């Protein structure tokens, strides 16, 4: 899952180091436009349903946070 997620992220923003960046939103590296683009990709790839209530900065601040969101929605 992690590899696939990083692949999606890198495709979207090849300029960002997703492995080491733990403040993607707080630093302004990912912005709301990126999140909207990500949501569709993540929903399709991981068969989940990210909706507006999940579009919170803390859910997208790091790869780990996004994985936690995916796992929560897959349960």
């Amino acid at each position: 899952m992690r590899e696939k997620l990083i692949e999606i992220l890198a495709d979207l923003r090849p300029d960002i180091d997703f492995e080491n960046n733990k403040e993607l939103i707080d630093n302004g590296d990912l912005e709301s436009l990126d999140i909207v683009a990500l949501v569709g990709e993540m929903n399709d790839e991981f068969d989940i349903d990210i909706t507006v209530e999940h579009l919170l900065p803390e859910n997208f601040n790091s790869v780990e946070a996004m994985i936690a969101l995916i796992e929560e929605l897959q349960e």
Partner: protein
Amino acid sequence: MESVDTVQQYAELTKAVKKKYGSYLYNAMLMPSQVSQFIGESKLYYIPREEGILFLCNEKDFYKGYFFIKEDVDTMEVEKMNKPLIVEFVISNRTIVPVEQMEHRIRQANFELYVENIRTVVELDQQVLPERTSDFFITWAGSSEKEQIYSMWEQLDPYDSIIPREKVYDKMGEDKELLCLKRGNTVCGALRLKEENKNTGSIWLVAVNPSMQGAGVGRQLYVAAMEAGIKRGYKRLWQWADRKNQRVLKTVGQLGFIFDGTVSREYILTQ
């Protein structure tokens, strides 16, 4: 038209479209903070449609529309309302295809392009700031500047859509977001400097006193915003400007702002 009363309700309504059709097209995805703000100002409504749902943000002189519709709809009949309806698309090199498909359908539904804004960004650590003239002093605006600032804002936009309501203005004042250029007791210009994240600020509501147009007030305001941004530790500032507003684009261009590839297109369906 029914009101949206909670963020959860908004989420459920959009989920219902996806559940019914499997997927949807939309022109913009509102963030929870935006939904909360609209709900807090009692201005978010929805209209169920055969092909999905239309959310309306009820501004003073127009509605801002947010469509969620099934992908295979060929045409959209949009009923005329008692105020113009504006639909916005924000597009960058990271735009996903569904937004473009939605824009195509809006055009087919007889909306016309109303304004195209572009986003410009300045990297603060790469700029040598010009000195500000001593004619003016800079202050964070509060209640004593309110009347003059509102008067300037009212001239900014034909729909008066962007003027913050009283409570929102007061909060901006408390949060030290309203930068003001004054000469004596006269407000010569003002803008809002908003924090996007710890590295980024954004500029909104740039207004110059009509009696001082052409006196370099706008440029001084931007320089002041950049100084304030640097003091706050921002690495960059961005702002939206009408693509056709050459005066503003020239001013900010001279200060190092460059187009970052992000475009906002607003389409309007008039009454």
